[in-house]
């Protein structure tokens, strides 16, 4: 049911099928799907929206990949938070005044 690599031909053929044509019409577009898939990671979506998203996956493997890839990204950084920290970068560092101030404060304790 999912569209294969020779998508253009496939899509043309499949769109003739009334069911697929209907699914393309009623489900969110891929652009809307990316937004919804992201939102689903932060808030509960209405059940109707969730059903339509499920239906969209029936005709679009790319959005399903997108969903898995966002989840993978989340799992990756949550499992290894230390890896996302700025190790050696050209990001701004503490000024020497700030360092002196910090050292003084620490010594006073």
């Amino acid at each position: 049911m999912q569209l294969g690599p020779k998508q253009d031909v496939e899509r043309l053929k499949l769109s003739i099928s009334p069911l697929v044509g209907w699914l393309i019409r009623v489900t969110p577009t891929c652009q809307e799907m990316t937004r919804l898939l992201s939102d689903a990671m932060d808030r509960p979506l209405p059940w109707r929206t969730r059903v339509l998203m499920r239906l969209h996956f029936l005709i679009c493997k790319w959005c399903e990949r997108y969903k898995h890839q966002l989840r993978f990204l989340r799992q990756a950084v949550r499992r290894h938070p230390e890896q996302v920290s700025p190790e050696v970068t050209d990001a701004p560092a503490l000024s020497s005044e700030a360092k002196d101030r910090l050292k003084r404060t620490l010594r006073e304790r």
Partner: protein
Amino acid sequence: MPSARLTLENPNQAFSWGCDLTIEQAFATIAPHSTVQHSCGRRTMDRQPLSDPDAWVDQHGDYLFRCAMLRVQDRAVAEDLVQETFLAALTAQERFAGQSSERSWMVGILKHKIIDRYRKDVRERPADDPVLVDQAEDDASFDEGGHWKLDQTAPLDWPDHPGAVLERKQFWSSLQRCVGTLPPTMAQVFTLREVDEMESGTICAMLKISQSNLWVLLHRARKHLRQCLEGHFFGHREAH
């Protein structure tokens, strides 16, 4: 010569210290994924001692400051947070369990300090802030019908086993580079939400934005990172 101490420059600080959690609570609330562990009542003799507090500023100051900057995007606040972190570490050094590195222990304290600092702002969240985020999106990833451009932007099949990917240094350096290319606010919300697992409400309070704006920012950050990783790490367009 700067004589004013950081504590005096920030009127909120007295308050935030005043309602600070105790160190015990602080350790209890550090996220479970953190490598920081509290060995309560179980002092092992072979634990690594902390280094001399005098050396902390040189050893970890810049690192902690960058971690703080990534999350708060404000120099003065970041400096404040680093100071609070060092002071809390000084008070709590007895409890340093030695199971994690000194640095990740301090990062754990820093993250707690950030949440603590903004928790009190949560209820003062504005209803909406239309200025920061332009909701309309002219997105080149999609055709006029809102569908993926199949030979340009449609997500590829990421081949490797996820576990194996996380072992690879190159994956993390690509990710760091990609986070670096995000606009600052997006890097900030991504780090707070995805890395630190902070609640949306707290992030909205920190940035003083509405939830719907936060969701747009998160959506764009995730989309950008996914695309960037695909370009720099996961492969080539022809491998459909």
